[in-house]
C-alpha cells in the first residue's frame, strides 16, 4: 500500500500516526457510535429506490449497499495516550449492469433523491463504458435470499466498553514491558464495526453486523553503547471477534517452543508485553545466524503471512487473468496448470482450504458484498491445485456456475470486487505436538510471529523474516538467533512441507489492512494453520555493517 493511501493523523492533532484513509470518516463522539443508525425498514425502502430506478433505466441487474462503518482506534506510547479516534461513515453504493457492462456510483445522501441521482449516474457510466467492453458481463446465478440477517457472534461489543478501560489496558501492557526492560513501547487497538445492508434485483435483502478487532504493539530494547536496537512485535492476531478477545483466558493460551507464550481465541496483552520486553533484550545479544540450509519449524502466527503471500494472492482468479497486472502483478498459478489437474503446488500433506465462514476469522460473514452465502471450498487438495477464488462475474471463466462468495468492498463508496477469503492450511491428521516436531529436527530454526515479507509479482520467489528466531540443534532449542530471513520459490517451498502439527496447535493469523486494486482498497483476512515443518530451506544472514 502506498503512503498516499494513508491519512496522517497528525493533521488531526495527533503525532505521526497513520491509518488507511478508507478507515476514516467523520470523527464522532463515542456515544454517537451507540446510536442505532437507519432502521432496516427504511433501508429496504431506500434500496428499492435504487433497484427500481436502475431497472427503469434499462439495467439488467442492480445491487445497492447501504453501509454504516464505525471505527475506533486507540494509540499509546509508554505512559502516554497519543490518540483516541472514533469515526463514522454512512452512505450507499449502487452497482448496475447495463449494456452488459458494470457501472457504479455512490452517495452519502441516502434520500430518495440522492439515490435516484446516484443510480442514474451508475447506469450512465455503464452505458458509456460499454463502448470499450469486449465481452458482456456474465453473472453466475444466485437465488434471492429474501429478508435475512447475520451478525458476527460477539460476546462484548467494543462500543459498549468504555474508552478508559481500553486505554488502561494498553497502558498496563506498556508499563509491564517497561518494567521488564523495554526502552520504548508503542501499542494500539483497532476496532471495526461494519453495519451493511445489501439488496439486489435477485430478491435479496441482507442486513449484516460485522465486527473485527486488532490489538498490537512493538516493544523496543536499545543498547546505546553498541548503537543497537531490537523490536519484538505482539503475538496477537487480528480477529473477527468482539472485545472478548482481550479477556486473556488461560484456556486459550498455548505453550510454544522455548517457553514462548502464544494465544488462540483470547489474548493476554499484558503477559505478551512482559514476554516481549524480555525477548527484545535477549535479541540484542543473540547470535547472528550462519547462512545455509535449515529445516524450518514455522509457528502459525508466522506461517499465516507466508500462506497469505504464496497461496492466497496467487490463487485469486483476477490476478491469474491479468486484471491486477499493473499493480500487484499476475500469477504463476496459471489456468493451464489448474486445468492439467495434476499441478503439484505442494507435497501430499498440503491441503489448503478457502472459506468465508470460520468462526472468529476476519473473513467470516453470512453473505458477501454481492449477496452470495459464505461457504468453504478447496484450493489445494493432497498437494494439487484444484480451484481458485472467484466471484459471480468470474466463475464462468473456470467453467463453474456457482460464485465462491468472496466479493468485498472496503466501504459503501467503493465498488466491490474479488477479495481473498480466509485461506488456511489444514492441521495434520495424526497426533503430533510442537515439542515432538522440534525433537525430530537435527539442524533447524523455529520462527514465530510476523516480520519482513516480500514476494515477486508472479509469486514465485519470496523472502520472509519473523519476530523471534530460535536455533534448533539435534532436537533441542539452543538459543535465539538474529539476522534470519529465508528465501525460497513457492512451489519448491510447499513441496518441502514435511510435517504438520495436529489440530490442538491450530490458530488464526490475520492481515487487517490487506491492499489490492487501483484505487487501492483494504480488506481483512485470516489464515489458519498448525506449526509446520519445511525441510532444507535456504536461510540468509541479513546483518550488515554500515
Amino acid at each position, binding site marked *: 500500500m502506498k503512503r498516499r493511501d494513508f491519512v496522517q493523523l497528525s493533521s488531526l492533532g495527533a503525532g505521526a500516526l497513520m491509518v488507511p484513509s478508507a478507515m476514516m470518516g467523520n470523527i464522532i463522539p463515542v456515544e454517537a457510535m451507540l446510536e442505532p443508525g437507519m432502521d432496516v425498514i427504511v433501508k429496504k425502502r431506500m434500496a428499492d429506490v435504487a433497484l427500481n430506478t436502475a431497472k427503469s433505466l434499462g439495467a439488467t441487474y442492480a445491487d445497492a449497499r447501504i453501509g454504516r462503518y464505525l471505527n475506533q482506534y486507540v494509540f499509546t506510547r509508554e505512559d502516554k495516550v497519543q490518540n483516541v479516534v472514533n469515526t463514522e461513515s454512512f452512505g450507499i453504493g449502487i452497482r448496475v449492469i447495463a449494456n452488459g457492462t458494470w457501472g457504479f456510483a455512490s452517495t452519502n445522501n441516502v434520500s430518495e433523491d440522492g439515490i435516484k441521482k446516484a443510480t442514474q449516474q451508475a447506469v450512465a457510466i455503464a452505458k458509456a463504458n460499454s463502448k470499450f467492453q469486449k465481452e458482456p458481463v456474465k453473472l453466475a446465478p444466485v437465488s434471492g435470499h429474501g429478508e435475512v440477517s447475520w451478525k458476527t457472534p460477539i460476546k462484548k461489543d467494543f462500543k459498549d466498553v468504555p474508552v478508559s478501560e481500553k486505554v488502561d489496558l494498553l497502558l498496563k501492557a506498556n508499563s509491564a514491558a517497561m518494567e521488564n526492560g523495554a526502552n520504548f513501547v508503542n501499542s494500539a487497538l483497532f476496532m471495526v464495526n461494519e453495519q451493511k445492508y445489501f439488496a439486489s434485483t435477485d430478491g435479496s435483502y441482507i442486513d449484516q453486523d460485522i465486527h473485527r478487532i486488532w490489538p498490537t504493539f512493538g516493544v523496543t530494547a536499545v543498547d546505546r553503547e553498541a548503537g543497537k536496537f531490537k523490536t519484538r512485535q505482539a503475538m496477537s492476531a487480528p480477529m473477527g471477534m468482539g472485545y472478548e478477545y482481550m479477556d486473556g483466558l488461560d484456556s486459550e493460551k498455548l505453550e510454544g517452543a522455548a517457553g514462548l507464550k502464544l494465544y488462540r481465541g483470547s489474548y493476554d496483552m499484558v503477559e505478551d508485553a512482559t514476554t516481549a520486553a524480555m525477548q527484545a533484550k535477549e535479541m540484542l545479544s543473540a547470535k547472528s545466524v550462519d547462512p545455509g540450509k535449515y529445516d524450518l519449524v514455522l509457528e502459525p502466527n508466522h506461517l499465516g503471512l507466508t500462506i497469505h503471500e504464496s497461496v492466497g494472492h496467487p490463487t485469486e482468479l483476477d490476478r491469474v487473468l491479468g486484471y491486477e497486472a499493473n499493480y500487484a502483478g499476475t500469477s*504463476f498459478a496459471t489456468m493451464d496448470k489448474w486445468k492439467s489437474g495434476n499441478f503439484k503446488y505442494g507435497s501430499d500433506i498440503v491441503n489448503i482450504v478457502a472459506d468465508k465462514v470460520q468462526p472468529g476469522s476476519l473473513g467470516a460473514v453470512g453473505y458477501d458484498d454481492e449477496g452470495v452465502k459464505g461457504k468453504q471450498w478447496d484450493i489445494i487438495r493432497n498437494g494439487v491445485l484444484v480451484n481458485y477464488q472467484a466471484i459471480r462475474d468470474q466463475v464462468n471463466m473456470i467453467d463453474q456456475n456457482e460464485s465462491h462468495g468472496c466479493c468485498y468492498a472496503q466501504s459503501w463508496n467503493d465498488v466491490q470486487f474479488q477479495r481473498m477469503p480466509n485461506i488456511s492450511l489444514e492441521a495434520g491428521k495424526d497426533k503430533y505436538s510442537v515439542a515432538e516436531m522440534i525433537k525430530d529436527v537435527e539442524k533447524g530454526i523455529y520462527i514465530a510471529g510476523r516480520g519482513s515479507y516480500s514476494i515477486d509479482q508472479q509469486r514465485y520467489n519470496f523472502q520472509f523474516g519473523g519476530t523471534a528466531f530460535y536455533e534448533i540443534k539435534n532436537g533441542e532449542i539452543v538459543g535465539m538467533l538474529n539476522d534470519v530471513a529465508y528465501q525460497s520459490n513457492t512451489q519448491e517451498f510447499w513441496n518441502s512441507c514435511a510435517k504438520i502439527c495436529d489440530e490442538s496447535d491450530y490458530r488464526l493469523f490475520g492481515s487487517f489492512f490487506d491492499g489490492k486494486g487501483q484505487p487501492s482498497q483494504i480488506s481483512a483476512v485470516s489464515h489458519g494453520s498448525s506449526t509446520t515443518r519445511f525441510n532444507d530451506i535456504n536461510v540468509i544472514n541479513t546483518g550488515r555493517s554500515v
Partner: protein
Amino acid sequence: MAIYTEEEARKIMEKALSFSTADACEINLEGSESGNIRYARNSVSTSGHRSNQTLVVQSNFGKRMGTATIDEFDDESLKRVVARSEELAKLSPENPEFMGPLGPQSYDESLTFFNTTAGITPDYRAEVANSSIQPAVEKDVTAAGFLNDSSGFSAMINSNGLFAYNKSTSVEFTVTMRTNDGTGSGWVTRDFNDISKFNALEASNVAIDKAVMSREAKAIEPGKYTVILEPAAASDLLGRMGSALNARSADEGRNFMSKEGGGTKLGEKIVDERVSIWSDPLNPDVPTSTWNGAGQPLKKMNWIENGVVKNLAYSRFWAKEKGVDPVPFPSNFIMQGGDASLEDLIKGTKKGILVTRLWYIRSVDPQTLLYTGLTRDGTFYIENGQIKYPVKNFRFNESPIIMLNNLETLGKQVRVDGNLIPYMKIRDFTFTSLSDAV
C-alpha cells in the same frame, strides 16, 4: 464543487472559529475532486469520480485536546462540530506533548495548481486508455494501466492568528505492458502537477518497447553487480530513508541515524561526497504546498550535503525538549544529478545490469536500513557499453546507505512520484537470488 477559493474557505473557517469557546482552536478545511480510469486485458475495466470535503476542528482546554470533523458547512453544522470537539477535549486525558497553536506565519506562493489538470474530463481519461491499448494491440502486447487525477485545496486557521491556504492539482499514470506470449513485461510511470506535460502515447510506447525487449530473458547468477538504476528504481529505495530523518527516534537510539554510544549522526559523512539531497517546495518540476498540516512554513532544506547529514526533522515538541528550532519533515526529495543520459551511462559500462524498477520493497533491518525486493518489468544485461540481452529478475538485499557509498556516476534527474531523482550507476549492488517472474 468542492474546490473553494481562498476567500470562500476563509469565510467558512472564520465562521466556525467564531463559535469557539475553548482556550485555543485550530481548523483545517480540505476539499478535492478526483477521477480515474483503470484498464486491463486491453479493455477499460473501471472508472470513477470522487468528491470530498471535510472540516476538522481541534479544540483544546489546557493540554486537553479534542477533534471533530464534518462535511456540511452551514452555520448550524459548524456550531455543532465546534461544540462536539470541545466536549471531546473536556473528556480527554491531558497530552503532555501538546504544543499550543502557532502564531501567524508567512508562506511562499506555491506552484502546485494548474487549470489544465483541474479541467480533465472523462473523455480525456478514456483517450489516455486508448493511447495505451491501440499501440499495444498493434504490437501483440496487452496493456493494463491506471490514470488518477485530482485537484483540491487545503486551508487552515487558528485562534492565534494563523491562516494558510493552498490549491493543488496532480496526476499519476502507470501502465504495464505484457507480451502476449507471456515472456516479456515493460512498465512506465509518469506524474505531474500540470497534465499538459503528459504524453500518454510516448509513455505507453516506452513500456511497450521494454516489454518487447525483455522477451525470453536469460538467467544469470545472482551476486554483486554494477547496476544502472533508472530513477523509478532508485526513488523507491531512497524514499525509504525518510523515516531515518526523524530526530526523535534517532535521539532515542532506535533508527539508522542513532550513533553508537548515544547521540545522532548529524554532521557525519554517511555516503559518497557527490550525494546531496534536499527538499524544496518551490522547485518548478516537483512543487508542493509551502506549509504542512501543522501550519509550519516549508522552505528549501538540505538533508544530506556532499555526503554529510545536514539536518534531521524535529517536531515542535521534540525541538523544545532539545532546545533547537523545529524542522518540518520534507514534502519532496531532490537529489543532485549529473549530465549523463541513460545512453551515456550504458556506453560507459563494461559489465552491468540495467534496472527499470524495484518491486515489493520491505524493510529487513531498520538498524542498517537494509531492504529486500525484486527487479521488475525490464532488467537487462550490459556488456562493453551495450545492452546485450534481457535477464531474469533478481531479488536484492541492499541498504540505500551502502548503495550511495558505492556510487559510480550520477545521471540526469527525472520526476518520479513527486521527487526529483537522477539515473545512478552503482557498483557492487547485492542480488541474492533469481526470480522466474515476468
